[in-house]
């Protein structure tokens, strides 16, 4: 299953890209699993995901906790806590 990943703010800066497309292995069932798997793919990913407490996620544009199952997600965004307004 192919998923589009979007990165914002310092997550994007550390990874060095705002977007990538991945096909995670079958044992990746939650966003937390996905993050674990992504963290092994480059030093940038590892740095971006080092502090899980400061990581937030959205599935298909809805904010969700990191333990949410990926399900049939087409777009997953990973980013720091928001600071607008």
């Amino acid at each position, binding site marked *: 299953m192919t998923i589009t990943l979007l990165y914002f703010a310092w997550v994007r800066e550390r990874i060095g890209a705002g977007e990538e497309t991945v096909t995670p292995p079958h044992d990746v069932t939650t966003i937390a699993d996905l993050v674990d798997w992504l963290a092994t793919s480059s030093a940038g990913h590892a740095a971006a995901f080092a502090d899980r407490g400061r990581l937030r996620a959205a599935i298909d544009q809805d904010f969700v906790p990191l333990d949410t199952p990926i399900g049939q997600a087409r777009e997953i965004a990973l980013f*720091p806590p*928001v600071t*607008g*307004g």
Partner: protein
Amino acid sequence: MIRVVVQKSPIDIMAEMVRVEGEAGAVATFTGLVRADDGVETLELEHYPGATEGALTKVAEGACIRWGLSAATIVHRVGPMHPGERIVFVAAASAHRGASLEACAYLIDRLKTDAPFWKRETRGAEASWVEARDADEAAAARWER
């Protein structure tokens, strides 16, 4: 009537006021500006296109239903800004003042935690991402029931 806008251009407060006033008796607004007093030279607002508009619409709809507003407006800038410029403008219109004042506070409190915006400040050669504040989570939580 809900109006949600994410824009690069400066916020035209006068036009937004006239739109939100309509036939209301009371309009409360909140405007957030780049502070001129803390050494920031440039503030850059990044957002999550598509998701941002959806999140803001949900916040505005929540306020309209809860307080029976005649209109709610949220306008948020993205891109680079300078001290004194308006980052965000929210407004709530209703028949009486209590509803508009409470709804206005709700709009900005929820926006702070529910909408995917990120601020990066530049001071001289130093650029840094603004850290989220626990106080913002607390302010948003007081509206839960």
